[in-house]
């Protein structure tokens, strides 16, 4: 496995690191990992480095890069909004990868806003044939709400902790049940719109893996809830949903990092 620093895009403004598998495998897709929030291309908990190196060992060529103005990449000239610029940057990453490695299939991967940007790019760019979306948009599901509340109510320690925080005058917002780190300032599309967009992608034979963690447990905490929420759509086998309720948003525990890699191996056919 070898790594190469690469600058590309308009004026070589974008910077990334290519992690190359030891031998070229033309039938394997190229994998591109997008920024999680505004964390640079190393990723939260160095997760993007670990993923890229793991995938390279399983014979994928991987790029992790910084969008304009993030990490090591320079800001873009004014004119485009955040979403538009993110799509433009990601498409430049795809251009660079296909110029370098040939017109192979493209899989985009990202956590949180990285998932959002991957998904938005896929809607506009038919070269994208796969999406790995870690904590993508999630929608209210009554079953999830009820089971989450029931689980919480059974934990006596939780009430003690809450009372302790209130008595000590700690910040009321911090750590209480309603304030989770799920979606920060993300504004999801309407449920119907998201469903229609996923339908467009599955109809285009884009394969998708959606992994939800505990950070959205109040919205989704079992994989069948996704089908319930989008029951009027038929995503066929191209869309897989899994809920990892024992995993946190940024895969802090080493066991969860290993589990993620193993799950990706299975999905990518590494």
């Amino acid at each position, binding site marked *: 496995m070898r*790594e190469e*620093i690469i*600058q590309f895009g308009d004026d070589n403004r974008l*910077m990334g*690191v290519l992690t190359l598998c030891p031998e070229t495998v033309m039938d394997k897709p190229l994998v591109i990992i997008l920024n999680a*929030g*505004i*964390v*640079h*291309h*190393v990723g*939260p*908990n*160095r*997760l993007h*480095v*670990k993923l890229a*190196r793991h995938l390279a060992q399983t014979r994928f060529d991987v790029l992790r890069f910084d969008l304009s103005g993030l*990490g*090591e990449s320079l800001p873009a000239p004014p004119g485009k909004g955040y979403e538009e610029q993110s799509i433009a940057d990601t498409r430049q990453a795809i251009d660079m990868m296909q110029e370098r490695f040939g017109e192979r299939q493209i899989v985009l991967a990202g956590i949180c806003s990285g998932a959002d940007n991957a998904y938005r790019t896929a809607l506009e760019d038919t070269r994208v044939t796969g999406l790995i979306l870690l904590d993508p948009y999630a929608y209210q599901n009554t079953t999830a709400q009820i089971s989450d509340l029931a689980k*919480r109510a059974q*934990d006596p*320690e*939780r009430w*003690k*902790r809450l009372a302790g925080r209130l008595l000590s005058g700690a910040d009321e917002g911090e*750590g209480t*049940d309603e304030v989770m*780190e799920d979606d*920060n300032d993300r504004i999801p599309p309407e449920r119907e719109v998201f469903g229609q967009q996923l339908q467009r992608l599955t109809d285009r034979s884009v394969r998708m893996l959606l992994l939800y963690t*505990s*950070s959205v447990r109040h919205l989704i905490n079992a994989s069948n809830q996704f089908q319930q929420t989008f029951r009027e759509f038929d995503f066929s086998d191209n869309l897989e949903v899994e809920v990892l309720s024992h995993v*946190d*948003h*940024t*895969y*802090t*525990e*080493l*066991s969860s*990092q290993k589990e993620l890699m193993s799950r990706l191996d299975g999905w990518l056919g590494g």
Partner: protein
Amino acid sequence: MKPFHFGPTTAPLYGVFHPAHQQQGRVPAVLLCNPFGVEAIRAFRIYRILAEKLAAAGSPVLRFDYTGAGNSAGDDAAFCVARAVEDILLAHKELVDISGAARVAWLGLRFGGGLALLASQHKPRGLGGLCLWDPVTDGSAYLTEMHDAHLLELSRVFDESEKSILTKRQQVDLSAEAMGFAIGPDMQADIPDLNLNVITERPARRVAVIAGGHEDALTAHLEQTGAKITTHQDEESQSWNTDAALNAFSVPRKTLDLLVETLGGLR
């Protein structure tokens, strides 16, 4: 700004060189020594902006990742105190070679402060000053702090008691990880080596300490080595070290200005 690999070709280190916009005769080159683990991820943005400000003020700057950290070679478990100290010395030489600077100042943040102190004992040619920013000077205590933070974080994100978290992880070796990063056997073995007792030589002629509030023993110890110590209090100097700050664009401007001024004076 030039990102590049340096060091051994089999296990390269990742570095980013910021050439000085206008070389000033008496301003030192600056080497930025990263913290460890999650703190290194959180420090990325402030280090990048600081490097740009220092370069604009006339200092060539090198920031880099240790073996087993960031973009450098090696998995998490490859990181340890002894190797990180070697990496600092290697990065120092690289900075001298590419910048041609006669004088270099090091900035060490948190664990990077402790590592910089250890590396200074090797007396690299051209090291003129050290700036220690909220430095870690007791490796064992730091590791305990990181393990405690790990447990607290899991308790927070899963909204479960620490007792419940521990019960569910009876089969997990929690000493081998902290806050998203593996703590390898080498690190577990050599982290006690990071302590003030091993600092017997003057680290540099001038040492500046950006205080986190617990540096009295450090400054007293360093004064005994003959170093000229200055301390700077800055109430914003720890504000970068949270998940909230990691996900926000803001950086403590006053701290940056203080660092540029302090490092510029370490020649």
